[in-house]
Structure formats: C-alpha cells, structure tokens
C-alpha cells in the first residue's frame, strides 16, 4: 500500500514536472480515459504543499527500488574535497542515495595549502554554508588551532572570522561525518568518462578500472587533479597534489562532449620543521581571548587551547637571492604560461613588481597540534628545490631551519564556468554539475559554497524538482556563482568583500536569518536547528522591542553620564536605550555594565541587536535600493533567444550574450562587453516578442471561443483555407 502511494506520488510528480506538455492533452483529450483524474492531482499540483508534507527520503524510493544494483544511485559526486564533501552531504541529507568517489579515501577534505578557514568574505561564505546546514563551519569550529576576528572596528559587514585549523584533524572529522551520514556511500575510484544518454542527459560515470556507476545527477569536483601537473623549479610531474597522482583522461572526454577547457595555475609554499625555528625574536600573533564561531549551532561551540602564529620578514639577502636567480623561476624563466592569481603572487613576483619595498611580511602558521610542520605564508615560490632552503634561511628566526616539503606550483584543467547555469548544472549535459576549482575558483570556502548548492540541485534534479538558485544579492554564495557563470575570469577566483555590491546586507551576523529559512524549506535544517533558530530570532526581536521602550532618566544613574562622555553627545531626558545605542562608541556592553542589559542573550545575539539598531538607517536604505532594482534585474530571459538575430545589439553584445546565455536581465547586464544600450535593445526585443506571441494567442483564443459558440464557423474557415 505504501509503495503504491509512493508510486502515485512519483507519477503525479513526474507529470507535474512535465505538465507543460501533458496537462493540455490531459485536459482536452477525452477525459474518461485518464487514469488519475482524482482531486488528488490538484493537491499535488501545488508545489509548496507537496514540498513540505512529504517525508524527506520517501521521494527517492522509485529510483532506488527500481534498480537495486550497487552501481546505481541518485547522485554521484566525483571528488571528496571541500566541494565534494558538502555536495555529497547535502545530497544525501535530502534523501538522495549518493555515491562519493575519490582518488584517495585518506585524503578527504584535505587542506593542501593554507591550513586555515575564513577571513574577509570567505568567512561569510562559511557562515552561509552553515546557515544552509553545511559542515565546513562546524568542522572548522571543532578543529581550530587559533581564531581571530578581523576588521573588528571597521564595520559589521566586513567583520570576519579566521581560524587556523589542524589539517589532519580536519580531514578526520570530515571523514567521520561523511562515514556516518545516511544514504551516502564512499568509494575509491578514478573517474575517466561521463556516460551520456540520448537526450544529452547524464547517465553515470566510467572509472579507470572499468566499473561504471549510474545516476541521473553527477557532480564533478575535480580540484587540481584534472590533468594536474606540479612544478618545482624546472622539474615537473603529473600530480594533483604533491605525492598524489593526477586524474587523466577526463578532460579529453569532456572536450569530446563539447566543453571548453582551459588551464590555471596556483601554488603552495614550503613547510618547515617547527623544532628548527627560533621563535624567541619573532613577533607572536595570538588568538582572540573571546573565541567566535563559524557555526550557528551552539553544540559545536567547544573552546580549546589555542596555538600561536608568528611574524617574520624578508631581508635584503632574500631579495638579493631571488633577483640573482630569477631565470630559474617558471614565470620569469618562461616555461610556465598558465595564469596565477593576482592576490596570491609568488615571492619573486612581489619582489619584481614592488621593487621599492624593502621587506615583505611572512607569517609562520602551525599545521596541526601533533605535527611539526609550519606553513610559511606569503612565501610561495617557483624556485628550484636546491635554492628554497637557502631562501628560507634568509628569514629571521629560520636561520637554521630544516625544510620538510618544498614549495611547488600546480597547473590544472578547469572549465570556464559560463558553461554552467546558476544552479551549477552544465548547459550542455542535463544532470551534470560542476563545483569548486573545476569552475575556476580557489579556496576551501568557495569550494564548499558551490558544493552545497550543486549537492542540493543534483538531489533535486534526480527527484525531478525545480533547481534552487541563490540570487546575487541574497548572499555571498549567490554573488560567487553569479560572477563565475557571468564573467570572463582569467585567474583563479577568490571571494573578496569588494566583490559584493550589497555587502552591508550580507553580514556574518545575519547569514542565518537570510538563509536558514531556505535551508529549512529545502529539508537541510532539522527540527532541533530550526527550533534553535526560531528561538534566537524571537529573543533578538524581543530585545529590540525592549530597548525601544525602556527609557532612562538623565538625573538618576551613571549610564546617561557615561554615555554622554563616551559619545561626546548630550543625552535627552527620558531617552530610550535604543537611542543611546545609536550614539557613536556606545555598545551593548555599556548598557550591561550599568545593569540595562539582558543576560539571557548570547554574545552573538547581543551583536545582532546592536548592529540592527546602530546601523538601521544604512541597512534600510540599502535594502530599499536593492528592492527597487530587484524587479527589473530578476526579469527572466527565455532560453532560446537568438542574440545573433538582434540587429539592434552591438556586435560584441551579441557575441558575449550568445556565449554566456544569461538567465536574467540583471545577469545580462553584468556580462562584460554588454552596454546599457544593449540591455535596452534586449528589453525592447523581449517586449516585441511577447506582443507577437500574445497577438497570436489572442487570435487563437478568439478563434476557439468562436468555434465553440459556432462550430460551423471553424469548419467553414478551414474549408476556405483548404480551398
């Protein structure tokens, strides 16, 4: 009985999905022969209701029960890095039976470069992934070695958390989560080909040793592994990371499917042995005394002992050594052409481009509690290995250091992301998704952000549901994806706060109130988290109400006196606490100090209250500006627009729009080379097309209406036409 019900559900679902074509025929063919004409159909046609009422895992019963074989899944995720893990977890949690394929089971969620999570803009990504129910924030909270809040006093939108993490512990913790998640299988394999069905839809993947795995959704998160090649000086070898083999063959097969590929370069500095460094004369960088958290889930707020980072600087000897050996570096020697990122220059780049600077800062960061490795941040180089140690030893404190791993550069294939739509599904092959470095990004946070979106959409795709798209102005995740699929990127893409035009609205403190309701609606936020969330929001709004109503008397108490002395502004008689909080330099802490605080609130909640009140004017203004433009920006563009036929568009506009095929007017306006005049021309064409189809439809409707009242008329007319 249950199976039958599920089957009906699926069938009607499928019909709902394809009802564009089915419903009309269903409606107008002789009605008695339709198998499911129960009122139930109507119920199912309301997508929202359908969504909320159904138990999560139930919807997938058809695909997994139909083919019980081990090789058939709903979703296959290729690669278990930061994108792959989030994708697989999101997909499995949505009830899709998910297979996670990786080249090496022991290197899940590895941090091959900087052992750190967060920083400006990146921490916002982490908070957002967490607000949607992802894991990067939780694992970083669990494995931190040190935590610091950056930009403390520069405004709530740029305030950001950065954590040094224990890279081994990080990988272990993520593995534990992956292992213990229902619906999720993990397996070692090298994927070499994508199996494509007749309708340009993905059917599965083929692996090196001959196994095929099947699923209607496949996510590729290949990182630096696709035709990866690492370089130390002039020497190179095929590898995804040092000591790990690259994945071969997949690029060629993707090219055969018609995908455009290109190559990017990035690098990582040397690691040195902590025991051989003399820290005594180096400036120490401690973590914050009051630790902050990425995750909104208080269960993961477990404090631990922090470790120290250290600061050293390049010296004249360093600079001389590099200048003398420039010809030995790949870039200046001229044997590597792939583009490296501007914000991650090698030390030789820094010295060549900024000749006047006598010294550059170098950070020494621990890679873990139990390992002696120290990451030498700011010191990546393409110099040959034999020169790297002398170079390291030119740094104060490292005079006698020993090097554990040399610095290396890595070149890899990526697929310019204009080939994806904003759901991260490729435009060419239905059901094939890309996430992470394969889309040209860099960074664990950027990868995780794409991972969770592609995971959600892959699962929904397998289930025949609508894809989810985060709009640009909704989140840093949305901004990231919008940039990726719209812009012509020439270097690995890193998230920066200046990339978001709406950053005042996209803060760390409101990531949950922006995205958790969506996470809940999608099915990624469980009841416990949802309850926590709702309680938190209730407390915040209660407190804001209280601050609005409670008034203080100027004559009585020290609060007024201290407020006016701290803010150097007078305090009015019977001022509300809210009005005090709006004054410069007045923080919630001051209210607390004088007994006007609320002890039931957490520090985070107090921050939220303070930000909402203090910056209300700015926030409301930005929100209003945003709303004004949203209407126009979100106007959708049909998929089948023929830009080349629009003679009113500039030539460049036609070319670029044909290539990117934007989904909305807003996205079109962001495509490089598309002018405002092009957008106007586009709007006119759309409107003209709409009028034409409308006229045609009106004509038909009238015709049929007439036909109904007078069937003879149509016959006559047909008769006339035939003659």
């Amino acid at each position, binding site marked *: 009985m249950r199976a039958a019900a599920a089957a009906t559900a699926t069938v009607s679902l499928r019909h709902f999905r394809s009802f564009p074509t089915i419903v009309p025929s269903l409606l107008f063919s002789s009605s008695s022969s339709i198998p499911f004409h129960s009122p139930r159909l109507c119920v199912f046609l309301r997508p929202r209701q359908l969504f909320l009422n159904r138990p999560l895992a139930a919807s997938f019963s058809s695909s997994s029960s139909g083919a019980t074989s081990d090789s058939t899944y709903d979703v296959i995720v290729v690669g278990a890095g930061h994108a792959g893990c989030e994708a697989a977890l999101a997909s499995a949690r949505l009830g899709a039976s998910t297979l996670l394929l990786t080249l090496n089971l022991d290197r899940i969620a590895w941090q091959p470069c900087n052992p750190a999570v967060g920083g400006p803009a990146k921490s916002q990504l982490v908070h957002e992934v967490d607000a949607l129910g992802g894991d990067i924030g939780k694992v970083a909270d669990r494995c931190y070695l040190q935590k610091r809040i950056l930009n403390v006093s520069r405004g709530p939108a740029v305030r950001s958390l950065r954590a040094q993490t224990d890279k081994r512990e990080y990988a272990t913790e993520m593995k534990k989560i992956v292992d213990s998640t229902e619906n999720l299988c993990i397996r070692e394999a090298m994927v070499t080909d994508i199996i494509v069905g007749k309708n340009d839809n993905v059917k599965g993947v083929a692996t090196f040793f001959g196994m095929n795995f099947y699923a209607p959704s496949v996510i590729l998160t290949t990182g630096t592994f696709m035709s990866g090649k690492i370089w130390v000086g002039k020497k190179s070898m095929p590898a995804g990371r040092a000591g790990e083999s690259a994945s071969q063959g997949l690029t060629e097969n993707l090219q055969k499917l018609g995908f455009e590929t290109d190559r990017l370069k990035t690098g990582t500095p040397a690691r040195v042995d902590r025991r051989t460094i003399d820290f005594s004369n180096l400036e120490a960088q401690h973590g914050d005394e009051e630790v902050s958290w990425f995750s909104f889930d208080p269960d993961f707020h477990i404090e631990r002992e922090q470790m120290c980072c250290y600061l050293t600087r390049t010296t004249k000897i360093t600079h001389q050594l590099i200048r003398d050996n420039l010809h030995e570096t790949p870039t200046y020697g001229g044997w590597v052409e792939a583009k490296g990122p501007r914000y991650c220059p090698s030390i030789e780049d820094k010295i060549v481009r900024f000749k006047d600077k006598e010294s550059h800062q170098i950070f020494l960061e621990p890679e873990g509690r139990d390992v002696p490795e120290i990451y030498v941040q700011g010191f990546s180089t393409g110099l040959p290995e034999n020169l790297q140690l002398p170079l390291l030893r030119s740094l104060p404190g490292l005079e006698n250091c020993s090097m554990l791993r040399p610095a290396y550069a890595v070149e890899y294939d990526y697929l310019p992301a204009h080939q994806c739509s904003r759901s991260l599904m490729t435009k060419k092959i239905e059901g094939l998704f890309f996430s992470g470095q394969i889309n040209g990004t860099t960074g664990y946070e950027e990868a995780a952000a794409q991972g969770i979106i592609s995971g959600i959409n892959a699962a929904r795709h397998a289930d025949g549901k609508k894809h989810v798209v985060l709009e640009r102005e909704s989140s840093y995740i949305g901004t990231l994806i919008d940039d990726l699929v719209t812009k012509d990127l020439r270097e690995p893409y890193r998230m920066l706060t200046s990339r978001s035009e709406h950053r005042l609205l996209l803060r760390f403190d409101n990531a949950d109130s922006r995205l958790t309701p969506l996470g809940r609606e999608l099915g990624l936020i469980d009841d416990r988290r949802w309850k926590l969330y709702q309680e938190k929001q209730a407390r915040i709004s209660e407190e804001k109400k209280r601050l609005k109503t409670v008034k203080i008397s100027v004559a009585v108490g020290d609060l007024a006196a201290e407020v006016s002395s701290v803010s150097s502004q007078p305090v009015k008689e019977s001022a509300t606490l809210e009005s005090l909080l709006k004054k410069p330099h007045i923080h919630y802490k001051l209210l607390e100090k004088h007994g006007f605080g609320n002890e039931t609130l957490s520090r985070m909640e107090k921050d939220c209250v303070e930000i909402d009140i203090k910056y209300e004017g700015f926030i409301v203004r930005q929100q209003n500006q945003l709303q004004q433009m949203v209407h126009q920006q979100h106007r959708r563009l*049909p998929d089948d627009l023929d830009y080349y036929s629009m003679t009113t568009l500039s030539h460049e506009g036609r070319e670029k729009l044909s290539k990117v095929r934007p989904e909305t007017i807003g996205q079109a306006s962001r495509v490089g080379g598309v002018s405002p005049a092009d957008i106007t021309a586009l709007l006119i064409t759309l409107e003209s097309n709409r009028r034409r189809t409308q006229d045609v439809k009106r004509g038909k409707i009238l015709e049929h209406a007439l036909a109904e009242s007078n069937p003879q008329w149509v016959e006559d007319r047909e008769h006339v036409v035939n003659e």
Partner: protein
Amino acid sequence: MVSLLCFRSVGVYLLRQATPIITRGGRISRPISKNLCFVLFSSSPKTSLLKPRAQSSENNSLVFKGDERVVGLVGKVVDDAFDKVDRFQSSSTIVAIVTPIGGPPGAVGIVRLSGPKAVEVARRVFRSAKKTKKKESDSDTWRPKSHFVEYGVVVDSNGNVVDEVLAVPMLAPRSYTREDVVELQCHGSEVCLRRVLRTCVEAGARLAEPGEFTLRAFLNGRLDLSQAENVEKLISAKSSAAADAALEGIQGGFSSLVKSLRAQCIELLTEIEARLDFEDEMPPLDIESVINKITSMSQNVESALDTANYDKLLQSGLQIAIVGRPNVGKSSLLNAWSKSERAIVTEVAGTTRDVVEANVTVRGVPITLLDTAGIRETNDIVEKIGVERSETAAKVADVIIMAVSAVEGWTEEDTELLRKIQSDKPMILVMNKIDCAPPGSCDQLEDQRKKEEVFHKSVFTSAVTGQGIEELEDAILEILGLDRVPTGGHQWTVNQRQCEQLVRTKEALVRLREAIEDEIPIDFWTIELREAALSLAQISGQDVSEEVLSSIFAKFCIGK
C-alpha cells in the same frame, strides 16, 4: 463532475502560474481572457493553445529571501518576487523638458516626471496654492488627484520660488508611460524650464535619456508593435549619440573635474577596500589624509556647483559696462547691439553724460548693457559726474568692454584709462569703427592687447555695419564659460548631465561627511564613495568593484 471541477482549477492555476502573458496586459484584457479560458477548459475538446512558459522557468525556482530580521524594518521583503519579475518595472524616476527648446520661446513649456517616485519628487518641489492658503506646514504632504490640474509654485531646496506652474498628476497606469507621471507646466522660457528641471534633479529625479519616456511606454505595454521599431531606432541613435556626447564631454563643462573626482573616489576606495580585504598585510590607513581628501573633494564639488552655475547667470543675468574715451562709438555699439536707438549718438565727443541701459539676451542669458560717458579729464561739471558714474559702472559690472577707436589706434589716454578702471574682472577690448580704419591699425591694436595682458579677448566691430557683434557675444560667452552651452543643443545636455553627476556626488559626500562626524566605521564610508564614483561615471556597481580590485592589486603588494 469532480474531474470537471478539477480541470477548472487546473486551468486557473495554469493561468495564474504559467501564463502571466495573458493576465499581464492590464485591466482590460484580464477578465476577458480569463473568462474565455474558463469556457475553453471546461468543455473544449482539443486545445493546445496554452503552451506554458519557457522550460527553464519551470526548472528553476528563484530564491530571493530577505533577511528575516529586517522584515519588520523594511516592510514587505520581496517574497513574491517570482510573481512580479516578469513585469517591467523601472527603478528610477526620470525627468526631462518635453516641449521643444532652442527655438523662440513658447508660452508654456512642460517638464515631465515619470517613475515610481514621480509623486514624491513632485511633492518635494511643488507647492500647491490651494494648500499653502490653508496651512503652511501641511504643504509637503501634497496628495495628487489623478488627472486634476493644480495651480502652485515650484520651489527649490531652500524654499525659493522658481516658477509658477500647473501640476498635472497622471497616476499609473493612466499615463503615457503607465507609471506615475507628473507634468509641470511652466512658463515657456528656457530659463524657467531649466531651473525647474534642475530643481527636480536635485529632488532626486534622473535626467531622462533620449526616447526614454517612449521606451517605458512601450515596455509597459503601451504603443503598438509597429512603434517598437521607432523605439529601437531611437535607442540605436541614442548609443551613437552617447558616444558623441562622451567625446564632446572630454572638453566641455565640468568634464575634467568629473574625471578627477572619479579618480579620487576610486583611489580612496582602493585605499580603504585594500585594508578591508587584506587587513593583516597592509600598513595602517592614514585616516586623516583620507578625511582631508574627502573634505577637499566636497569643496571642489560645491564650488563647481556654485560658481559655474549657469542657473545663477540665468536667474540674475549679467551686467556689462562699455567704457572708453569719448567718441570711440560706445553708444553706437549699444544701439547696434540692442537693435534700438536707446542712446543718443552724435559726432560730438561727450554726448553721453549719464549711464544708459539697454537689455539684450545672449543665448538665453539676460544681459544689461551699460553705456557710459566717455572717460576723460574734464571741467564740465555734468560731464565730470558722468565720468564718475562711468567708473562706478565699471566697478559694478560683471564684464567690462573697453572700446577704442580703430581709426585712432591705441593712445596715451587709453593706457591712462585702462589703469583707472583696471580690476580682476573679465575685460574685452573692442576695436570699434573698423569700417573706416586705416590698414595696419588693427595689428597695432592687437599688439597692444597682447602687451597689456589684462584683456581676455579682443573683437573688431563696426557699430555702423553691425560687423563683429556676434563675435562679441561669443567672446562674452567664452569668458563666462558659457560658450559650450548652446541652447537646447547637444553640449547643453552633456553639461546638464555633468551637473546632475555633481549634484549626486555632492549628496553622497554630504552623507559621507556626516558618517565621518558620527564616527561610523570605515566600511560605511565605502558605500558613499562607491555611490559618488557610480554617479560620476554612470556605470554599474560591478564595474566599480572590478576597477577597485585592479587598482588594489596594481598598487599594493598583497598576497600570501
């Protein structure tokens, strides 16, 4: 029966969800098509007209959820964005003079506002006569009644009356553009129209692009399809015109100021944003120098808006004093210029004893010409007073025209006189009587002008033939920086736009300085700087981001 009902609701559902096309056309078409479809769905046998929307919109749900915490603050956050996005909605309110300008002034000219904030802008600039009688303070809550004409005045931000107008509100959708439209019928002179336009811009409206009202009308479902072609033509004309304008803008008006202001904004953004994204790699920001730069920027903007203010000239006009030795033809010049016999002209030196005024209009700027008594040493009491008055006239005038006789050439007395009247005011040397000048005298005078260096321009005229009057007008306009303001022409538009850019920049900088005074964190400064940069370049926010990023990477050594 059950199935029938069911189909009905499906039909309605389809109509609502999948075909906004039909419900979209407006009030008139909606009920008709709905009814029609009802009929169709319930019984018609084979109808495949209702092809749903493009597949993609079926596949994609667009998520734009606001921040739940600010819902209370902003009112309704776009929850139903999905329903609305298919309608064209312009975000800005535009304004333009819609009656022709440049020709002879009409009796009435119209300034049209259109867009979501048309009423709000009108409310800021328009004071209804009806209301002001009742209650002074109530005047800012003007509630327009659609299609009812109201009489009143337009006032600027300081409350000064700009013009008497009739306001004609036409609320959406019963207007040309189907948006809220307010038309202000002003007096037909260009001066009035421009000032009303400027007041609207200051109140928050944006100058309309050529054809923009028609474009909006079309996109909002007005005009028929054949007219689309005309709109398209307008738009393509617009892009080439924009290119022209950009080209011309290189020389005209405030363009160098606009460019340098923009560069300064980007520079400041670079400094600040680099610190925000790469905190630990940068030397600390020199806040004081940033504040100094901001202060000097806002001073530049304000002084530009004040001094190069055509409106000021348009409003008060100019006084031009014609001075010179007796009998060089000052009065004849005045008569020839003003095309009147305002001043008495004789062969007798010293005929003019008092200051004679005549009015002319040069390119819309009202000018008062002051003809003065010839300046010389004299014992005649009346003439002596006249000479004194001449000197006073030279002092109060905005521009001094010194007339010399081309027949006699530059004389000792001329040098003497020049010393007497010299000031830092712009001066033009007019060499009159060119018609009867001996050859060579011109060169001598020209040399003299160069030697004296106080003259900005020299013009050869003949009051008898009228020769040189036009050049004289040009010279005046050039000196005042008005030469690039041809009436209603292209350049005027460019200047208006630059003016608008400066107005917007000024607003942003005012807010920025408030933020600094309130010690608001530095991230908020970037909001205003970005807005200033945006208004100065009229490009998109993403482009500013990209520019700032490139500048950061070029300027600072960043990277780990």
